[in-house]
């Protein structure tokens, strides 16, 4: 099995610093966050430029080149509702370290992002929902099937659709958590890849609690077969948990210094 893929989530326009840097094309804050995440062990970096309706294409190209040139063609997840911006980003993307990820498609209004990924030989994150939260796993799997069929119909390798079960917040939806874990097992039994915004589970919890909840969940998810997650790699406890689980899963060879590499 391949190592668990962590997608660093900290280049996000929701952060005022990043938003400002993107607006003024100021590399420093973005490079700083990229470096922090890579040093902490992120594999992919997510680049969220927001809706970017006006200059999305230009902004995404700038961001892709900036990050790849400074960090040895680091692989990226291109995250925006603006499809043209994603395509523009892919047009300047270097695949040496991995295919680009289109973040994201769903089974509803954003299903065409699968077509976009297929046309550009990209990976796509496929959110198993159409509108809102799926009511049960039958619904999740129906969406999964729809998206899988669409991708395969367009010639995609099923491995390039990374299914997102839609992680739910514990405070409010505690009773649905096992469903999410079961959905991951179903993806895994199908031989499919999976990912998602795992830290959503701990939204609204005290700051010191969140790493604990996130670590526990990632361990359970990896046991179920989750192959990737979109996380904050600067969360040391979480990253240590992922590295340890990778050892148990035989995804990486143990060495006494495994946490240091």
């Amino acid at each position, binding site marked *: 099995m*391949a*190592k668990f893929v962590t997608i660093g989530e900290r280049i996000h326009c929701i952060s005022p610093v990043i938003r400002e840097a993107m607006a003024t094309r100021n590399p420093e804050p973005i490079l700083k966050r990229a470096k922090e995440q890579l040093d902490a062990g992120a594999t992919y970096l997510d680049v969220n430029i927001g809706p970017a309706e006006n200059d999305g294409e230009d902004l995404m190209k700038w961001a892709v080149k900036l990050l790849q040139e400074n960090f040895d063609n680091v692989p990226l997840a291109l995250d925006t509702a603006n499809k043209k911006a994603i395509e523009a980003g892919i047009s300047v993307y270097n695949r040496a370290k991995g295919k680009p990820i289109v973040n994201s498609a769903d089974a509803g209004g954003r299903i065409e992002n699968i077509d976009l990924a297929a046309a550009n030989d990209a990976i796509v994150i496929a959110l198993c929902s159409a509108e809102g939260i799926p009511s049960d796993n039958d619904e999740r799997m129906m969406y999964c099937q729809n998206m899988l069929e669409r991708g395969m119909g367009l010639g995609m390798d099923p491995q390039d659709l990374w299914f997102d079960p839609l992680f739910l917040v514990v405070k409010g939806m505690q009773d649905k958590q096992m469903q999410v874990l079961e959905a991951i097992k179903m993806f895994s039994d199908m031989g499919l890849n999976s990912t998602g915004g795992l830290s959503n589970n701990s939204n609204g919890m005290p700051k010191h609690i969140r790493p604990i909840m996130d670590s526990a969940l990632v361990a359970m998810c990896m046991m179920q077969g989750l192959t990737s997650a979109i996380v904050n790699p600067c969360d040391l406890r979480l990253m240590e948990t992922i590295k340890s689980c990778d050892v148990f899963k035989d995804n*990486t060879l143990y*060495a*006494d*210094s495994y946490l*240091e*590499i």
Partner: protein
Amino acid sequence: MPFNQKPQKFNAQINTVTIGSGEKAVTLGGGSTFPFYTFDAPAENAPKVGVEITDMGLEGMSAGIKAYYDGAATMGEIAKKASEMEGADFVALYLEGGDPNGADKSVDELIAIVNEVAAAVDCPLVVEGCKNVEKDAELLPKVAEALQGKNVLILAEKEENYKAIGAAAGLAYNQIVGAESAVDINLAKQLNVVTTQLGVDAKKIVMNVGTACAGYGYEYVASTMDRIKGAALSQNDAMLQMPIITPVASETWSVKEAMASEADMPEWGPQDERGIDMEIMTAAADLAAGSDAVILRHPQSVATISKMIKELV
């Protein structure tokens, strides 16, 4: 319907490490496929063959090996002949006389031999310690110092003495560091991690992950190399992407099959032939499993393995 060939592409490769300098320098590693899988991707650097000589001269060598070195009286002359062997890419000097349980030669005495050998050859040089961890910790830093500027491979640091040897060879004197583990993948990786933590460049490390003679627990060797290459390529594990060098000769020329005289084992036939085949077959298995360089003694073995490599890449 033709056969649907599915090349196995890896997004990772073995580090390239150059030993020696000038036009005879050799480069190990660089590939991104399993050994000799040229149908997946063209070979980068073909595996290399080294000729092993020891500070004990020709003592204990087989008749065929002695015959090759006939007329060579000094270590310098032996080394020169070794470097001229057909198929030889480098010379490996094994300082076995340093072993406190053997001849227990002094460090100074051995350094003199190292210098004599280095002066006699123009090909890349590998220096192997005596295998006693305390003695090597004292001896190998001196070797690294004596051969400054020659970019030699120092074999080897082990778990017990990596600080002394790794720091001297890899940092102070800028040589290539050999990291030796005995058929233990976790230790192989760990040694690379701690060596790089000393500050040694990962691309200046070559691994000796251990070997055994064919028939002597070789399954552990095969699986260790399979798993290291697998992790290096399919898991892109940077701490296992160092090329592998395997000193074959010292193992194969010390087992019964290679050592027993024809007088003792008449039905087995000539001793030299047995020694050659044990060396050739073990080296070929090592190369098939993942060695990027092998160290041999007999001229026939060197010629054959070198030819085999050329035919396979």
